[in-house]
Structures are given as structure tokens and as C-alpha cells.
């Protein structure tokens, strides 16, 4: 692989003081300039700025250099910036190597040691750069079709947004109807719109869109393939009909369920007057009766207690875990606004029904939600606050006029113990992800410790999975309200559409490559391979003799290097991360940069 003498250009960034306050950048430049293979070394206040990029482009165009090393921030920020610049100069973007001298140096070291470490990291990057060869992105034909798994609000919205870009969509839903959790809701917080109207507006569009095919009441049996060419086997539950969907991308919109309190949790299951908010909402929805006092199941509710954070923000050692040991340590985010919304409805329509809300913290974080909280105060909802380790207790009332009594140590009343009589106790149960572990293991999707599906990065790549071509939207990822789920769905839709719009996809070429001359067909690589279908042994006819050789399917290869580690002939290697490149990097590090 080592060709003639490569000319490496090294570009060292000040990062406006972020690097240069701790690293003597000019001293580093002096050292780097003398390193073997380095044609030139330059510095710049911000290498990612236009002048910085122009400098690299000029040097490439004039032929002074044919390999590029940029020493700056973490490659996650600007690797693509510099690869694009190299591309614009007419060079191959894979002749580039990055040295991280900000996060790994100036932000954690100071003085001479910082300068020394920066020099060593650049030396090793330079050593690798000399071994880099131009690569071509892997081009994969992509079917202009997306499959959405889950027909709740996120799935419906994603389907519509994708279909509107001209890409066909198949929407797969396990239950017989579309709409998911919105079917159980009445008025959405904080706007007060009818959930059914919001849903109907979207459903009308989805059902009438020619580009959208809908399969309800079915389950997914198998998923195979890779980005641009996935294949899903689904089967309808009612008549066992099998169907295969060929698709280019997949959006997971598998949604969530409501936390189910265990028996005895706040009296749930022991007193019929203890219900969940999820159960109360349909009652309110059906309740057409006028009158100044709320009636539930025929019983007059003079006073009710609403308890927040049930099944959310659980603390190890305080809350009782489920049988599988799971504790929901996260905040479910939607219940505060949902509770206040319902409280306001009740107080405004049934002024003779009193409400005590017992909370740990009120988290009305979103637009319009604080107003609900204010409104609840105006409506004379009485707030009481409990600590996690002193939860309200629900007991039968000693007096006949109310069935229940709630005992609380109220920190808003100076930690005094209070007893509140109640006709009804409502529990704000949190959000839990629907169990899609089977599907996740089929697709090799990561699941977080909280059991929600896990994106690549919560800020930089919030709707993508590490498996290219698979996206996520809605409450399968985290607790979200309807608006947030639609936001996520829109983002996932744009990502999927952009991916498939050209009809082909270019993937990074950092995958395994077989040197067929060296390969003896041992097959150790195939055994070591982690990704089914990425490596196989094929028979090749060479001068009349049949030989076994390893073959890589580039689109499936993860570039993990498990094969390179086991090959006795060193006949398989990872492009962009070759063994020889590693060896030279290590050599450069142990010799402080002055070798090779």
C-alpha cells in the first residue's frame, strides 16, 4: 500500500484560543514541519473558517501536498467540513486524517505537556496519512420506499411527510386501528384541541394518499437486508396472510404504553375509587351530563385527590421495582400538563368538585404549559407537595361521608401531616416504551437502560439509529407529548426522504477488503464476522482449479475489524483503518514523531 513519498500538509488550528491558550501552536508547527513526509505545516485562527479551508484547497490544487492532516477539534464536529473542502479541491476526500488537539489536549492538559501531546498526536496522524489511499464511497441502489412501523400519531405524521416528497410509504400497525394513544385522549394539553379532531385531520390525508399503503392488525416476523434494500416479512393476525415488503428505509414509531401501578400502589387495585388518569380521561370524554358536580360511575365526586409522578422518577431503594428489576427513573414529562389540563376542565365545568393535586415537582416545561398551571391556581386547585420518601397514603375513611382518606406530609404546609377526604383518587401514571425487544434484536437496534430505543446522539443525530437507513420517531424514543412526537416524526421523515431521494446511497468506504492473492480460503474471517451476510466464502476458478476465497458485501460490512484480527494470512483489512496504518501510528507515538 505504501507508495512513493507522500506529501502531507498539516493544518493546525488555534480554535480562537481554545487550543492556543494551552498549546504553543507555533512550536507545534515548528516540530511538525521537520517530521518525515510533511511537505508543509500551517496554522490558522479558525481552520474551519473559509480562509482556513481555502488554504487547504490552494495547497492541494497547486500540487504541493497530496495528503491532509487537520489538527483541531473532535472529528465529530468538522471531519465532514474538511473532507468536503478536499472534495472541492478535486481530490479524493479519503486522503484525510484528523488529529484531535482540543478535547484530547488543550481542554485537559496545560503548558508544555499539552504542546508535547499535541505534537505526538499530529505525528501519529501524519504517519497514518502517509498510508492512506484514495477510496470511493460504496454506492448502493436504494428503493424509493419507506416502511413505518407503528400507526400512532408519530407514524401517521411520518408517513404523510415522507409520502408528500414522492416516496412511497407502507405503514404497519399491530392493532386493528390507526391512531395509537391518541384514541384514548380527549383534549390535548396545553392547547385544549380535541385529540380526535387532530387525529381525523391527519387520517383523512393518510387514507386518501395514493403513495401510502396501510397494513393494520399485523405483526413483523422478520427483517433482513441493509440500507436501501430492506425486506420485511409481515403476517396479518386475523387471517394469517403473509406479505413481504421491500423497502429502502425503516422508521420505528412503535410508541409507548401507560405505566400500570402494582396492586396496593396508592391503594390501586384495593379501592375501586383509585383509578389512573388514563382511565379518568375516557370517563370525562363520555360524560355529557351537565351539573355543577362531577359524577364518575354514577357517584358524586365532591372532592378528589390527584397524585403526580406515579411510575416516574422512581428512586432505587425507595420505589418498588418491577419483577424484572426495572425502575423508571426518568420523568415522563407529559403527565404534569395532562393532570393540570384535566383539573382545569373539571373545576371549570363542575365547580362543586374540589381538587387536591399532590406533586413532587410541577414540570410545566413547554410552551403554554405554565399557563395551565396558573389557570389551575385561579381555578382554586389546591396543591400539596410530597417528598419521594414520604408518599401519600390512601386509607379507607373513618367517616361515612367519604370513602377514602389521603394522608400526606405536605411540605407546602411546613411539613405538617394532613388528612384529605376523597371520593376519587387519580394517579398520573407515566409513559413506558412498548416492548419491541424482538424487533430491536432483529434490526440490531440499541435499547437504553430506561428501555426506550436509543438514538445515535441526542442532539447531533436525534432521529437516527447507528444502523444506516433506520430512523425513530415519537414515544418509542422518550416520553413526548403529541406536538413533540410530531416534531420527531417530521425530522425522521426528512431524514428518510433525503436518504432515498437520489435512488442510490453513498456509504463511507471504511469496510473490509480482501486481498484475493493472499486469501487461502481458511474461512476464519467468516466465522468471526458479526454481521450476517457481510462475509462469505465463494468458489473461484483460477487456471482450471477451484479455490475458496472470502468475499465482502460492502453495504453490510460494519467495518469492525473482527475479520482482520483472525486472518492468519493478513489477507483481509479495513479500508481507512488498515493494520499497517495502525502500526505506523504506534511507531510515531513511541518515537515522539521522529521516525518512519
Amino acid at each position, binding site marked *: 500500500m505504501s507508495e512513493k513519498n507522500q506529501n502531507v500538509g498539516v493544518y493546525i488550528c488555534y480554535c480562537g484560543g481554545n487550543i492556543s491558550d494551552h498549546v504553543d501552536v507555533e512550536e507545534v508547527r515548528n516540530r511538525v514541519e521537520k517530521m518525515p513526509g510533511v511537505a508543509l505545516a500551517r496554522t490558522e485562527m479558525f481552520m474551519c473558517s473559509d480562509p482556513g479551508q481555502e488554504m487547504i484547497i490552494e495547497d492541494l490544487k497547486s500540487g504541493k501536498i497530496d495528503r491532509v492532516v487537520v489538527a483541531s477539534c473532535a472529528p465529530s464536529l468538522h471531519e465532514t467540513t474538511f473532507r468536503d473542502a478536499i472534495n472541492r479541491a478535486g481530490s479524493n476526500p479519503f486522503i484525510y486524517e484528523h488529529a484531535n488537539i482540543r478535547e484530547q489536549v488543550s481542554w485537559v492538559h496545560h503548558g508544555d505537556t499539552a504542546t508535547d501531546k499535541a505534537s505526538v498526536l499530529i505525528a501519529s496522524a501524519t504517519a497514518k496519512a502517509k498510508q492512506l489511499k484514495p477510496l470511493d464511497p460504496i454506492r448502493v441502489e436504494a428503493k424509493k420506499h419507506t416502511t413505518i412501523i407503528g400507526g400512532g400519531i408519530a407514524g401517521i405524521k411520518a408517513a404523510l411527510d415522507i409520502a408528500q416528497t414522492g416516496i412511497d410509504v407502507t405503514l404497519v400497525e399491530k392493532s386493528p386501528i390507526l391512531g395509537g394513544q391518541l384514541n384514548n385522549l380527549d383534549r390535548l394539553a396545553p392547547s385544549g384541541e380535541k385529540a380526535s379532531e387532530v387525529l381525523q385531520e391527519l387520517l383523512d390525508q393518510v387514507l386518501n394518499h395514493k403513495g401510502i399503503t396501510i397494513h393494520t392488525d399485523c405483526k413483523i416476523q422478520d427483517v433482513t437486508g441493509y440500507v436501501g434494500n430492506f425486506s420485511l416479512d409481515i403476517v396479518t393476525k386475523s387471517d394469517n396472510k403473509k406479505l413481504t415488503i421491500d423497502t429502502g428505509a425503516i422508521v420505528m414509531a412503535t410508541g409507548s404504553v401507560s405505566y400500570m401501578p402494582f396492586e396496593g400502589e396508592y391503594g390501586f387495585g384495593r379501592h375501586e375509587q383509585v383509578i389512573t388518569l388514563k382511565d379518568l380521561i375516557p370517563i370525562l370524554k363520555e360524560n355529557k351530563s351537565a351539573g355543577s358536580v362531577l359524577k364518575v360511575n354514577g357517584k358524586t365526586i365532591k372532592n378528589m385527590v390527584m397524585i403526580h409522578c406515579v411510575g416516574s422518577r422512581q428512586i432505587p431503594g425507595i420505589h418498588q421495582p418491577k419483577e424484572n428489576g426495572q425502575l423508571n427513573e426518568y420523568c415522563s414529562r407529559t403527565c404534569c400538563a395532562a393532570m393540570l389540563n384535566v383539573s382545569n376542565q373539571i373545576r371549570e365545568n363542575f365547580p362543586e368538585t374540589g381538587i*387536591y393535586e399532590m406533586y413532587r415537582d410541577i414540570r410545566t416545561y413547554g410552551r403554554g404549559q405554565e399557563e395551565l398551571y396558573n389557570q389551575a*391556581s385561579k381555578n382554586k386547585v389546591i396543591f400539596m407537595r410530597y417528598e419521594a420518601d414520604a408518599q401519600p397514603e390512601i386509607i379507607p375513611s373513618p367517616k361515612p361521608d367519604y370513602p377514602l382518606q389521603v394522608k400526606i406530609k405536605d411540605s407546602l404546609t*411546613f411539613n405538617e*401531616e394532613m388528612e*384529605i377526604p376523597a371520593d376519587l383518587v387519580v394517579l398520573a401514571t407515566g409513559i413506558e416504551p412498548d416492548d419491541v425487544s424482538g424487533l430491536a434484536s432483529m434490526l440490531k437496534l440499541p435499547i437504553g437502560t430506561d428501555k426506550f430505543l436509543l438514538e445515535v446522539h441526542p442532539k447531533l443525530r436525534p432521529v437516527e439509529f447507528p444502523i444506516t437507513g433506520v430512523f425513530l420517531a415519537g414515544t418509542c424514543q422518550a416520553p413526548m407529548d403529541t406536538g413533540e412526537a410530531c416534531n420527531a416524526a417530521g425530522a425522521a421523515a426528512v431524514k428518510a426522504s433525503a436518504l432515498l431521494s437520489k435512488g442510490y446511497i453513498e456509504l463511507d468506504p471504511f469496510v473490509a477488503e480482501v486481498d484475493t492473492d493472499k486469501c487461502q480460503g481458511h474461512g476464519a474471517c467468516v466465522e468471526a464476522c458479526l454481521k450476517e451476510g457481510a462475509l462469505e466464502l465463494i468458489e473461484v476458478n483460477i487456471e482450471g482449479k477451484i479455490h475458496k476465497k472470502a468475499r465482502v458485501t460492502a453495504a453490510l460490512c460494519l467495518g469492525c475489524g473482527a475479520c482482520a484480527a483472525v486472518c492468519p494470512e493478513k489477507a483481509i483489512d479495513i479500508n481507512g483503518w488498515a493494520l499497517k496504518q495502525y502500526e505506523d501510528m504506534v511507531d510515531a507515538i513511541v518515537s515522539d514523531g521522529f521516525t518512519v
Partner: protein
Amino acid sequence: MNSVNLDFAEELKEYSDDTAFECFNCGTCAAICPLVHDNFPRRMIRYIQVGAKEKILENSDELWRCLHCGLCTHTCPREADPGEIILGLKRFVLANWRKS
């Protein structure tokens, strides 16, 4: 343990405006009060909100330490009018004195 009286707010209307529900428990009134400590008059207002009638009767002597200087009402950010509430509670306590 204090059992809450759900009808207390209604009962109190005879003696005082029901501005107690304007209060959001900031404590400015208690901080500014030059005469009485121990969260006065905030605690009394809280008792009205939750319906802790018995607690008010138990601690009614606190009410008579108040000289109605008006600082609490002047500084209240919510127009809950703590001074007037205390006056109203005095009327209520007098009417209920030794009733039970």
C-alpha cells in the same frame, strides 16, 4: 394529624374576602412581618387554602399579635391581601370562640 375541612373556605366567606387563593406561598409576607415569627401570616393563609380550620383555631393567639401595620399587604406580589385576611380570621375566631 390534621383533618382537612373541605367546606372551610365557604364558611370563611362570611368573615373575609376569599383572596387567600391568590397566594402562591412565596413567603414575602412572613419575611416582612416585623412582629410575628414562625411563618406568620403565610402559615395562616396556607391553612385557609387547604382547609385546616382546627389549626387556625389552635393557633389563634398569633392573630392578636398582628398590629395591622399593612407591610404584608403592601409587599404581596399576588394581591392576596394578607392583612385583610388576618382581620377576617380574627372575626372568624371571635365568632367561633369556645364553640366546640
